[in-house]
């Protein structure tokens, strides 16, 4: 262990130890360590192998912004080792390793780097045979792709999501951010202060001046209106100051009236041969290691001081007992600090195989085990860019500069240019031996960027896309400036003109789980949900609703057939509570319906029930139902279950334009409905106590009556989908239990049987009733359905009328027809094609074997010229065999409609 004594290591708790394994070896660290700092304390610098050449890599900045610090922690892939707190018992493994981290068999790829130029994959892997890519090369390349491993056995992760609001959000808990937060709080604002580290302080916390942090934090703690979120990364700044704050497995969405961005700067690597070796650290990286985690970076260091910051770090290293072998300064003639040697020039190369062993400067070799790089910084441009900041470049400081004019967002601290010092720009000529990395994620060297430009990919975005620079996990934080400089140099433009590629969220990784939030799927239950379960129903989801599919257990087709027979021969009851129901009322209610539906409602007498057909503006059938006129100014209207939310919204939409005096309520969830149907239906309803006369004379087909039944207020309608005598009773949902119990009791003497959805579908098909959405599609007109009768010829206007007239003139080549099949014939499946002279002219929309009729029946779109009774149409069944259906011109069951008129 190479820990420095206190006060180094302000973040770690030396009184406790945490045991963990890395690559199977056991290590110890302290609470407060990150995975990477604990490993460094144990002398384990190498964390991973690089993406392409499998070169040894470790942490450089210990700031969570590096490439190559991603490790696998148990089942969790791609964990940032330099950001993630160490936990007891962690089992950590390197990623992208063939064999072991120390002896990675794929490291040999690095030797062939010169054969693998930028974009090489576009130029090869196409032979030798025609499908060589798919069969031979792609599988091999895929096998090498990716970093961490995700297993289906990954344990479930508890995630959390919440929404906060604040007057001011300050991103960045360094001195600038703290000052902004305090100022806002003093002015009476409600402030949220966010920092990605476990404690506030920013860069101050890892300098010798760290003592000042305590006072700042105390002031923040003392301010009543500052909520502090540490360990939290602002991963995105979206429109109207909507912030994504990622806190491990939590996502906090924060709306702030004002946002202060104070996220500081990102240190940049220097470019030289082997600049990627473990042991090459940024100035900030060294400071974090020493001051936060109490880890000495090594015994003997060379400091590259392109930025004056390097001199201060050299002093800090010496103070911590690390020998400073030399300071390398690109500016000639710099004065050497006392007792230190300054070498003028640039670092040409780092020496070493898996760790730094020395550097080459101006032909001289200097032995060291640590190379500290102070090569300048760039402001963390990602969040400002998301907020609309324009990016420029300042030659003097070698930094990008940000110009932000978006109202409600401002920059503070390093982002606003504070603390920028002149930096000697490093040389950009490619090293003859390469390995002078621009992008550590993607293993891109100087020549790769230059060659991309030579190939004509001279726009920055094209450089990025061709070379993949900036596309890896560190998203260009360490490559953007160098890339811009290289492209500027190669194309004769300025660095500012080149800039950076569009900064896209997230600025730091956020988990899919936190984004998704706690699991949610909409589910709705009718009032009788538990009653159906009690009766043994198999419930199935239909949209969000749960509905009884059938009752009982055993042979399902026998159960369904029994339910069908019960309706045909006796009486059944179906819970139709999910049916869309709306009350449309007001002086203009009938005028409103007249505009919305195709039939006439102004002339509809009170007490009558009328079919409703709704078209869209293209004249396509989109919904149907019935309207029961309760009073001059009140209609009770039904809509299909799936369509009622849209119908309700459409009603509001249309009336925003029509401005009729009408009010609509959506009663779907508030009203239950039961359809009592079958030859004995009247026996059931007549046996119910109440004030409605259900006799044939008093209550004819397509009328409605409202009153009390079994003490429950109901709307009763003589309508049905089955073709049998039917009464549909609707009541407030809170009373559904009473009504249902009364119906079951009244039906017992005649064998009333509840039936489910599947029997209902067969019953309706036997009667030839269509289902909108199943027997219609996005272009179906009423004519194609044979519904000309449902379209008023007299009304001057209804939605879709004008389009319908146009379509009528253009004609249609298809019609929905009823087809029957021979009793023993193979039945086509739904969606099987109707062919005419071998060409598809339509398809089967609904099909079933009719238990009542004993043969197959279907609805299908067929060619309009074939739509005559008795014509035969050819259908290709799922089996591929051709089957024949015969067109019938009427309902399959009870063509004269006698039964429903009983």
């Amino acid at each position: 262990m190479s820990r420095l004594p206190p006060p180094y290591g302000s973040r770690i708790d030396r009184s406790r130890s945490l045991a963990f394994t890395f690559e199977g070896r056991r290590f110890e660290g302290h609470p407060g360590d990150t995975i990477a700092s604990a490993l460094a304390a144990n002398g384990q610098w190498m964390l991973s192998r690089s993406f392409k050449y499998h070169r040894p890599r470790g942490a450089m900045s210990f700031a969570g912004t590096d490439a190559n610090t991603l490790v696998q922690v148990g089942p969790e892939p791609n964990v940032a080792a330099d950001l993630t707190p160490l936990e007891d018992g962690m089992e950590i493994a390197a990623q992208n390793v063939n064999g072991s981290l120390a002896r990675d068999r794929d490291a040999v790829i690095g030797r062939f780097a010169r054969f693998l130029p930028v974009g090489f994959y576009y130029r090869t892997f196409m032979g030798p045979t025609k499908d060589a890519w798919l069969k031979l090369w792609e599988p091999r390349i895929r096998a090498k792709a990716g970093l961490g491993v995700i297993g289906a056995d990954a344990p479930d992760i508890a995630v959390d999501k919440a929404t906060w609001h604040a007057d001011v959000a300050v991103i960045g808990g360094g001195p600038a951010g703290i000052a902004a937060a305090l100022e806002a709080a003093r002015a009476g604002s409600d402030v949220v202060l966010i920092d990605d580290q476990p404690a506030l302080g920013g860069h101050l916390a890892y300098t010798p001046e760290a003592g000042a942090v305590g006072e700042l934090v105390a002031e923040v703690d003392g301010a009543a209106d500052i909520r502090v979120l540490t360990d939290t990364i602002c991963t995105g700044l979206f429109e109207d100051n909507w912030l994504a704050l990622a806190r491990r497995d939590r996502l906090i969405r924060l709306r702030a009236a004002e946002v202060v961005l104070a996220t500081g700067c990102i240190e940049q690597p220097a470019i030289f041969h082997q600049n990627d070796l473990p042991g090459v650290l940024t100035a900030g990286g060294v400071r974090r290691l020493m001051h936060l985690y109490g880890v000495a970076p090594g015994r003997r260091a060379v400091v590259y001081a392109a930025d004056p910051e390097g001199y201060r770090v050299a002093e800090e290293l010496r103070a911590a007992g690390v020998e400073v072998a030399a300071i390398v300064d690109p500016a000639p003639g710099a004065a050497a600090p006392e007792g230190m040697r300054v070498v003028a020039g640039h670092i040409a190369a780092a020496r070493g195989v898996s760790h730094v062993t020395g550097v080459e400067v101006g032909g001289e070799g200097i032995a060291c085990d640590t190379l500290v790089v102070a090569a300048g910084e760039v402001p963390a441009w990602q969040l400002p860019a998301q907020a609309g900041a324009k990016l420029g470049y300042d030659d003097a400081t070698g930094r990008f500069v940000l110009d932000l004019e978006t109202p409600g967002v401002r920059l503070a601290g390093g982002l606003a240019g504070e603390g920028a010092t002149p930096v000697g720009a490093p040389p950009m000529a490619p090293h003859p031996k390469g390995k002078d990395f621009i992008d550590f994620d993607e293993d891109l060297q100087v020549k790769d960027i230059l060659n991309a430009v030579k190939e004509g990919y001279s726009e920055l975005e094209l450089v990025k896309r061709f070379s993949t620079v900036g596309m890896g996990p560190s998203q260009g934080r360490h490559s953007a400036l160098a890339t811009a400089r290289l492209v500027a140099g190669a194309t004769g433009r300025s660095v500012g003109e080149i800039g950076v590629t569009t900064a896209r969220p997230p600025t730091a990784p956020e988990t899919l789980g936190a984004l998704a939030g706690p699991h949610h799927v909409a589910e709705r239950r009718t009032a009788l949900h538990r009653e159906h379960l009690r009766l043994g129903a198999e419930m199935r989801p239909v949209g969000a609703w749960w509905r009884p599919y059938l009752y009982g257990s055993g042979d399902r087709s026998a159960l369904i057939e029994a339910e069908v027979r019960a309706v045909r021969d006796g009486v059944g009851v179906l819970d139709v509570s999910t049916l869309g129901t709306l009350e449309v009322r007001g002086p203009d209610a009938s005028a409103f319906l007249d505009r919305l539906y195709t039939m006439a409602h102004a002339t509809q007498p009170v007490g009558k029930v009328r079919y409703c057909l709704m078209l869209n503006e293209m004249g396509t059938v989109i919904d149907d139902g019935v309207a029961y006129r309760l009073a001059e100014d009140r209609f009770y209207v039904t809509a299909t279950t799936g369509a009622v939310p849209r119908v309700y919204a459409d009603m509001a939409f249309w009336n925003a334009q029509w401005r009729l005096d009408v009010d609509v309520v959506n009663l779907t969830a508030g009203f239950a409905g039961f359809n009592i149907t079958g030859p004995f239906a009247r026996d059931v309803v007549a046996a119910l106590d109440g004030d409605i006369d259900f006799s044939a004379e008093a209550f004819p087909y397509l009328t409605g009556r409202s009153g009390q039944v079994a003490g429950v207020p109901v709307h009763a309608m003589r309508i049905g989908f089955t073709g049998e005598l039917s009464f549909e009773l609707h009541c407030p949902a809170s009373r559904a239990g009473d009504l249902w119990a009364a119906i079951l009791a009244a039906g017992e003497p005649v064998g009333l049987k509840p039936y489910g959805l599947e029997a209902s579908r067969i019953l309706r098909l036997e009667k030839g009733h269509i289902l909108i959405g199943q027997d219609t599609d996005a272009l179906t007109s009423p004519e194609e359905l044979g519904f000309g009768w449902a379209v008023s010829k007299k009304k001057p206007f209804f939605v879709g009328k004008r389009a319908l007239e146009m379509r009528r003139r253009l004609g249609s080549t298809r019609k929905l027809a009823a087809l029957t099949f021979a009793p023993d014939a193979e039945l086509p499946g739904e969606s099987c094609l109707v062919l005419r002279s071998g060409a598809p002219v339509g398809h089967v929309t609904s099909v079933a074997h009719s238990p009542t009729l004993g043969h197959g029946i279907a609805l299908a779109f067929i060619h309009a010229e074939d739509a005559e009774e008795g014509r035969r149409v050819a259908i290709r069944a799922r089996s591929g065999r051709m089957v024949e259906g015969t067109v019938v011109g009427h309902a399959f069951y009870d063509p004269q409609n006698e039964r429903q008129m009983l």
Partner: protein
Amino acid sequence: MSAVYPLSEAGAAGDLRDRLVAGADVALADLTPWPRFGLKGAGAEAWFADRVDLPEVNRVTEGAGLRVLRLGTRDIMVLSTDAEGSPVQPLRSAWEAAPQSYSSWREETWAWLRLTGPKATAVARRLTAFDLRAAAFGESDIAQTRFAHQDGVLLRTGDGFDVLFDIASTAKVVTDIRAAIDREEVFG
């Protein structure tokens, strides 16, 4: 003969009654059976104006065992402040034939839950994106917004909230609120 609401023993969501909470930090109660009554339409305002103290749109007035909610210029509703709701029933009986005023049926279409306690706001932040800070959402404010994935109405009640929403979704909403309460305990 009685009304059955989802969280009643025989109700659609009765199997989830144990997910209601009566803790010191946070409580979740079902008020769906409490009386309420509302009218919509051109005549609603005139009818209520004679009987109660009418608030502005999206505001509440409270008094005499009633809370009066103005959900729109022509959409007014009264909530009982207790389970008996004595002042609501007479209002409802008095309504019958008022011109151009129509029942809003919300006692049937809406469930009514109450989330209270010192941690109610922290829990509610997990369930709505609406700004719950006192400055934005005062004592007498109504928020017609989204809560627990449902369109609904949010009211302030003491140290918590009343929420009214699609009654058919009660089971899901109770499950989601309970999960948010649990997450408040885990994540704080």
